[in-house]
């Protein structure tokens, strides 16, 4: 079983302020935990003790001088290995970047460090964030800390496992079709996907640029608000980052949710949903009603088309984005007698099976003669799915659904059937296509002790509202319902 994560952003802050612990001691405590648990869990791919110590020393010096501490001072944080870290290896879970060391920090990482966070290392993930089980990592499969014979979910499985096992206080993940929310659900911790454009993608290695988002995993909702407060905001280095003012995530956090309208789409509770998951999420919704929320049945008629639209759009964008791995400028190079042969051999050896499959699917969808039938049609269906959400948010303040149709499945259970793996993303890809914020919060466990996740969607740029409901749910004991 997982050790309870013993530190939070608030408790680190308090302990540092009262000099009960130093940032350096805290970092070394976490490295000891990692040393003990990581060989079994494979949550981390690379540790960065040297920059972590330097950062911890800076925090300790600020404490010694009696300075006001920045919001994440001394907080040990893990970063998914698709997010660039200056001087620290960033593999994207791929052999093609096995030795790649970025020459710059992602904006989200730079903001964390400016806020005093101590980055412990880089977490395992499905190769280029493509997968729902973490079994597509070229290095090792992450194990679920709650049930080590099961997957942690994916693609941000390492980040979720690290926080759930107490190997980091918080972690950055990325979500393209559910890659923060689904592993959060499987590992029993909150995972927040922000609005598209809320957190800069600068330095995030691209998978599907119109869908990729960076967001936090934490052990509680207050910590999610704390991390969001640091990483959110406009960045001139990302032309798709929005100049919409950042909300004060604390302002609404503790406000009662009485009177809020929660939409429950019937389309999310039909065939394919595990009965225990259904029961728990229904109980979660009933709890929100007891807290004063008004339950409103919703129709979101295009839900059933989301997987098909998502897997065309995401793979089309991926096939284009991953064309850059050609052996010329960085990463693996396998020599060839001609330039084309060098490209082909490099990509053959460097990419794993799922990445190749998605590049093939995306290339096909974009190729002459098929573009209108697949890519253009998928973009139109995307507009219909987005319309389902904007129609819904005229009637409700939030939408509540299960995060995933099942709890964590066994390692190897689905890895030979890509379509079945894709279909399990049904409840998360809708919000991804619409670009709205969504959080998965723990919502009890099955009889076998496997965590269940409940998903809360909010309107664009209303992370505050999503966090407010999540916090009220947490305060009312919903996480252990």
């Amino acid at each position, binding site marked *: 079983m997982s050790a309870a994560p013993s530190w939070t952003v608030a408790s680190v802050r308090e302990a540092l302020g009262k000099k009960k612990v130093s940032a350096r001691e805290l970092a070394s405590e976490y490295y000891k935990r990692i040393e003990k648990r990581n060989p079994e869990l494979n949550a981390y791919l690379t540790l960065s003790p040297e920059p972590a110590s330097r950062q911890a020393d800076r925090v300790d010096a600020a404490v010694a001088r009696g300075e006001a501490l920045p919001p994440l001072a001394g907080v040990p944080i893990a970063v998914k290995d698709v997010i660039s870290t200056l001087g620290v290896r960033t593999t994207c879970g791929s052999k093609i970047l096995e030795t790649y060391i970025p020459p710059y920090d992602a904006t989200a990482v730079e903001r964390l460090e400016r806020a005093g966070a101590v980055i412990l290392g880089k977490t395992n993930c499905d190769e280029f964030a493509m997968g729902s089980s973490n079994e597509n990592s070229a290095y090792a499969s992450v194990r679920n800390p709650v049930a080590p014979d099961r997957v942690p979910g994916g693609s941000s499985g390492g980040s979720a496992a690290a926080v759930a096992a107490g190997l980091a206080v918080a972690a950055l993940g990325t979500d393209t079709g559910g890659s923060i929310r689904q592993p959060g659900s499987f590992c029993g911790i909150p995972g927040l996907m922000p609005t598209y454009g809320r957190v800069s993608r600068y330095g995030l290695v691209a998978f599907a640029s119109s869908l990729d988002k960076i967001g936090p995993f934490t052990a509680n909702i207050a910590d999610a608000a704390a991390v969001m407060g640091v990483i959110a905001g406009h960045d001139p280095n990302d032309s798709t980052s*929005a100049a919409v003012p950042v909300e004060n995530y604390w302002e609404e956090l503790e406000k009662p949710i009485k009177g809020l309208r929660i939409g429950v789409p019937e389309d999310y509770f039909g065939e394919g949903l595990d009965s225990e998951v259904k029961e728990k999420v229904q109980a979660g919704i009933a709890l929100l009603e007891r807290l004063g929320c008004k339950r409103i049945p919703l129709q979101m008629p295009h839900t059933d088309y989301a997987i098909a639209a998502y897997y065309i759009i995401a793979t089309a964008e991926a096939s284009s984005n991953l064309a850059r791995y050609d052996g010329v400028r960085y990463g693996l*190079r396998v020599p060839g007698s001609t330039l084309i042969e*060098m490209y082909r051999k490099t*990509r053959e050896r460097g990419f794993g099976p799922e990445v190749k499959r998605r590049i093939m699917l995306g290339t096909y969808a974009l190729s002459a003669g098929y573009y209108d039938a697949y890519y253009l049609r998928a973009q*139109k269906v995307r*507009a219909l799915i987005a319309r389902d959400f904007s129609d819904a948010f005229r009637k409700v303040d939030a939408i509540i659904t299960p995060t995933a149709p099942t709890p964590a499945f066994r390692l190897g259970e689905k890895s030979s059937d890509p*379509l079945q793996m894709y279909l399990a993303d049904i409840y998360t890809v809708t919000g991804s296509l619409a670009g709205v914020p969504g959080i998965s919060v723990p919502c009890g466990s099955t009889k076998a002790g496997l965590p269940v996740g409940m998903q809360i969607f909010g309107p664009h740029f209303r992370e505050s509202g999503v966090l407010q409901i999540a916090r009220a749910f947490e305060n009312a004991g919903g996480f252990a319902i």
Partner: protein
Amino acid sequence: MKISREDVLGVAELAHLELSPQEIDTYRGQLDEILTYIDKLKELDVANVEPMAQVLFARSAADGIDVKSHSELREDVLRPCDVADAVLSRSSDAEKPFFRVPKVIER
């Protein structure tokens, strides 16, 4: 059947992927199954729907949010960008200011 062995080879060539005979067969079967599933998109009438390429553009009108990043371009000013050494050092074969690759032009 939606996709033939030849289609797979054609796509692999476009994507610069070298596939083994076994991979070709595996991907053919899997892509066929996935594309057959994706055919469900054809059930919807999308004749009068505008394609959505980017969520931010489509959104601002609906939500009444002013997404400034799309109306404001940054000032066109020179900024120092002295990264050549850092960038070239990541290549397995570079000689400043070039990346070296196999000969491209035959003569």
